[in-house]
C-alpha cells in the first residue's frame, strides 16, 4: 500500500470507530449532530472538496459530486425529519471510500503483477575493462563492446557469442520452455536468461535498438490504443452520469408534484428525495470504467507471457473476431529452410549448373538463393558475376564468366522465350538458361513445420471459417502443401503485389463483422500485414521490420500460437462483455428498485462497491491463459 492508501485506511478505521462509539453513548440534540458531522468530515472531506472544485471548474457531474449530494442530502433529511439517524450518510461515505480504497489497491497490485510478468528489462551489463569486469548501465554500452553474461543473468544486449556455450531460457520472450543452446558465432537476443555457462558476447546493437527495448516499448504502448469497448465506456460514462443526475432530480420533484396536484395526496417530499439520493449512490460508473481497461491489460499481459505480443486493445478486439485466416506459405507454414533435392534435364555437368546458379544468385538474400549457395558449398568469387538484375516474382538475370545466365521460374523462361521442360517432382523449380539455351532445372523443396497441421485444425476448432494460403510458389507445390495441412483455399504464383490484391479481394467478399487475419513471417509481407484487418508476424525474434508492421507479434515461429492468440483474445473479450453486461444489469436493476423505494441507500452502496469488486476480480481472470 502506498502512502495515500494508508492514509485512507486510517481515515476509514477512525470513522468506523467513531460511529460505533457514537451509537453506544446516549447523546442528543446539537452535540450529537456536531459529533456525527465530525465523523462525516473525517471520512468525506476530500470528496466534498473535490465536488466543490468540480462545481467551480464547471465539471459538475462526476462521482464526487454524486456522493457529496447524496450524503449531504441524507444528512439534511435526517435533520429535517428530526430522526437523529445520521448513520446512513456516514455509512454511504464510508463504504464508498472502502470501495475506492479496494479499487486503488487491487488495480495497483494487478498492475504490478502484470508488469512483473513482462519484466525483461536487464539492470546491468558486465563489461570487460582492463581485464576486470565492471557493471555498466546497458544504455551506455557501445556497439561492438564485449560483454560477459554469467549463469543466472539476463542477456542485456543483442549480439554475437564470441566465447563459451550455454543453454538459454527464452521463456520470457517466447513463452517457450525448451531451452535454446548457443555456441560461438551464434546470434543471441537480449531478454533471454543464461542458465548454464559463462558467455562472452560482442554486442551488435545499442540498448535502445535491442530486442528487449523494442518489446518493452511495444508492451508499454499497447494499452494506449484503445478498443471500441473502451471508447464506448468512456462515451457512455460521459452521457450516463449527467443523465442519472437529471433523473434523480426528476425523481425528487415530479412524483411529489403529481401526487400533490393531481392525485390530491400529500407530497411526501422526504420519501422521494431519499429515493433520488439512493439513485445517485447507485449510479457511480466506476465498476465499468475500471474493469474494462483492466481486462484488456490483463489479457495483453497474459498473452505476453505466452510469447504473443498484442499491440493494443483494439487489436485484441479485432483478433477475437477473426473468421478468416490467410497464411503466407514460406516461413509461416513451412520452415523456409530449402534444400536442393534434384537437378534434372541438365546438359552440362550438375555441379557446373549449380555453380552458375549460385553465382547468379549470389546477391540475393531469398531463402531459395541461400539454399542454392549452400548446395554449391564453395566460396563464391563475386568478380565472376556482373550485371545482376533481379526481376521480382520471376528470377535473376546475370552475366557469369561472360555468359548470359538466367535463373528463375517458368514465367522467366517464357519472358525470355526459352523452351523449358516442366518437372514431375513437387517443389520449387529453378529453371536455368545459359546464353538463351535451356540448361536444365534445379528442384528445391521446403519442409512443412512440425505443428502446422495441428495449428490449422485448431484454428478450425476455434471457429475460423476459412483458411487461405497465398504463395509465390508454383501451383503444384502450393496445392500439395495445402492438402497435407488441410487448408481450404490456395492462391499460388503470386507476386508480392498480387498478395495485397488477393487479400483485398478477400476483404471485399466477407462481411464487416468477420475479420481477416494475415499471418506472415514479416520479411516481405509488410504491405499485406498492414492491409489485412489484423496482421500477425511470426518468428519475430530479432526482426524489427516484422515487429513494426504487424499488429500481433508471435515471438517464436510455432504456428499453433495463432490459435492460442485467438483463444486469448476471445477469452479477454468475453470477460469484457461479461463485465459490461453484469455491471449494467445490476446498476439498472438497482436504479429501478431505488426509484420504487425497495432498495435503500445501504443496498445501493453495497451494489456499487460489490459490482466493482466482482468486476475487478473477473477482469484479472484474463491473465490466466495457460490452458487456451
Amino acid at each position, binding site marked *: 500500500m502506498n502512502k495515500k492508501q494508508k492514509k485512507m485506511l486510517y481515515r476509514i478505521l477512525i470513522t468506523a470507530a467513531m460511529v460505533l462509539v457514537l451509537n453506544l453513548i446516549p447523546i442528543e440534540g446539537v452535540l450529537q449532530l456536531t459529533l456525527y458531522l465530525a465523523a462525516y468530515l473525517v471520512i468525506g472531506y476530500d470528496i466534498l472538496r473535490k465536488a466543490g472544485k468540480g462545481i467551480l*471548474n464547471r465539471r459538475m457531474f462526476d462521482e464526487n459530486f454524486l456522493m457529496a449530494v447524496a450524503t449531504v442530502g441524507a444528512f439534511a433529511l435526517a435533520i429535517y425529519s428530526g430522526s437523529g439517524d445520521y448513520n446512513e450518510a456516514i455509512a454511504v461515505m464510508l463504504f464508498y471510500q472502502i470501495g475506492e480504497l479496494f479499487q486503488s489497491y487491487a488495480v495497483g497490485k494487478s498492475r504490478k503483477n502484470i508488469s512483473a510478468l513482462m519484466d525483461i528489462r536487464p539492470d546491468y551489463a558486465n563489461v570487460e575493462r582492463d581485464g576486470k569486469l565492471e557493471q555498466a548501465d546497458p544504455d551506455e554500452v557501445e556497439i561492438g563492446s564485449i560483454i560477459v553474461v554469467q549463469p543466472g543473468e539476463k542477456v542485456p544486449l543483442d549480439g554475437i557469442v564470441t566465447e563459451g556455450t550455454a543453454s538459454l531460457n527464452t521463456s520470457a520472450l517466447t513463452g517457450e520452455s525448451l531451452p535454446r543452446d548457443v555456441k560461438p558465432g551464434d546470434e543471441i537476443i537480449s531478454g533471454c536468461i543464461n542458465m548454464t555457462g559463462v558467455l562472452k558476447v560482442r554486442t551488435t546493437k545499442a540498448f535502445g535498438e535491442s530486442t528487449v527495448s523494442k518489446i518493452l516499448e511495444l508492451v508499454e504502448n499497447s494499452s494506449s490504443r484503445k478498443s471500441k469497448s473502451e471508447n464506448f465506456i468512456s462515451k457512455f460514462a460521459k452521457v450516463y452520469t449527467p443523465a442519472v443526475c437529471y433523473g434523480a432530480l426528476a425523481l425528487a420533484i415530479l412524483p411529489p408534484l403529481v401526487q400533490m396536484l393531481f392525485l390530491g395526496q400529500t407530497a411526501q417530499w422526504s420519501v422521494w428525495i431519499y429515493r433520488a439520493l439512493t439513485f445517485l449512490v447507485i449510479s457511480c460508473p466506476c465498476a465499468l470504467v475500471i474493469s474494462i481497461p*483492466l481486462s484488456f491489460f490483463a489479457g495483453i499481459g497474459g498473452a505476453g507471457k505466452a510469447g504473443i505480443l498484442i499491440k493494443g486493445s483494439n487489436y485484441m478486439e479485432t483478433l477475437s473476431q477473426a473468421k478468416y485466416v490467410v497464411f503466407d506459405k514460406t516461413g509461416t507454414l513451412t520452415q523456409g529452410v530449402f534444400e536442393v533435392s534434384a537437378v534434372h534435364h541438365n546438359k552440362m555437368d550438375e555441379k557446373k549448373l549449380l555453380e552458375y546458379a549460385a553465382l547468379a544468385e549470389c546477391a540475393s538474400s531469398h531463402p531459395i538463393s541461400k539454399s542454392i549457395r549452400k548446395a554449391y558449398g564453395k566460396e563464391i568469387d563475386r568478380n565472376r558475376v556482373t550485371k545482376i538484375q533481379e526481376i521480382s516474382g520471376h528470377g535473376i538475370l546475370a552475366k557469369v564468366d561472360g555468359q548470359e545466365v538466367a535463373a528463375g521460374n517458368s514465367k522467366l523462361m517464357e519472358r525470355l522465350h526459352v523452351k523449358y521442360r516442366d518437372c514431375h517432382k513437387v517443389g520449387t523449380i529453378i529453371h536455368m538458361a545459359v546464353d538463351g539455351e535451356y540448361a536444365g532445372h534445379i528442384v528445391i523443396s521446403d519442409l512443412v513445420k512440425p505443428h502446422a497441421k495441428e495449428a490449422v485444425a485448431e484454428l478450425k476448432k476455434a471457429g475460423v471459417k476459412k483458411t487461405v494460403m497465398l504463395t509465390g510458389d508454383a501451383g503444384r507445390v502450393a496445392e500439395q502443401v495445402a492438402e497435407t495441412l488441410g487448408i481450404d483455399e490456395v492462391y499460388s504464383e503470386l507476386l508480392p503485389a498480387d498478395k495485397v490484391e488477393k487479400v483485398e479481394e478477400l476483404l471485399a467478399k466477407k462481411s464487416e463483422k468477420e475479420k481477416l487475419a494475415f499471418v506472415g513471417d514479416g520479411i516481405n509481407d509488410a504491405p499485406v500485414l498492414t492491409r489485412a484487418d489484423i496482421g500477425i508476424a511470426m518468428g519475430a525474434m530479432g526482426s524489427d521490420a516484422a515487429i513494426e508492421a504487424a499488429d500481433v507479434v508471435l515471438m517464436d515461429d510455432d504456428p499453433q500460437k495463432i490459435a492460442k492468440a485467438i483463444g486469448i483474445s476471445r477469452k479477454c473479450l468475453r470477460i469484457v462483455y461479461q463485465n459490461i453486461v453484469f455491471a449494467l444489469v445490476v446498476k439498472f436493476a438497482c436504479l429501478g428498485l431505488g426509484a420504487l423505494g425497495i432498495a435503500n441507500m445501504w443496498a445501493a452502496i453495497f451494489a456499487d462497491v460489490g459490482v466493482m469488486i466482482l468486476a475487478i476480480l473477473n477482469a484479472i481472470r484474463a491473465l490466466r491463459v495457460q490452458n487456451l
Partner: protein
Amino acid sequence: MKKTYKIEVDCANCANLMEEATKKTAGVADATVNFMTQKMIVEFEDGQDAKAVMKDVLKACKKVEPDCEIEL
C-alpha cells in the same frame, strides 16, 4: 514531437478526463493517457516548447482531477 511522462492517477475515469483535458490544451496535437502503465504520451504541435505546454497541461489536469500528478 512526442514525449512520454510518468503520471500518478488513482481512477480510470480520471485518467480519461485527463486525456480529454490534455487534448484540449493549446500546443498539444494529440495525447494518450495510459492508466495501466501510469504514463502519458503527449504529441506536441510543431514549434511548441514542450515544457511550457506541459505546465498548461498540468494545470488543466489538476482542474479535472485535483489528485493527479505529472512528473515533468
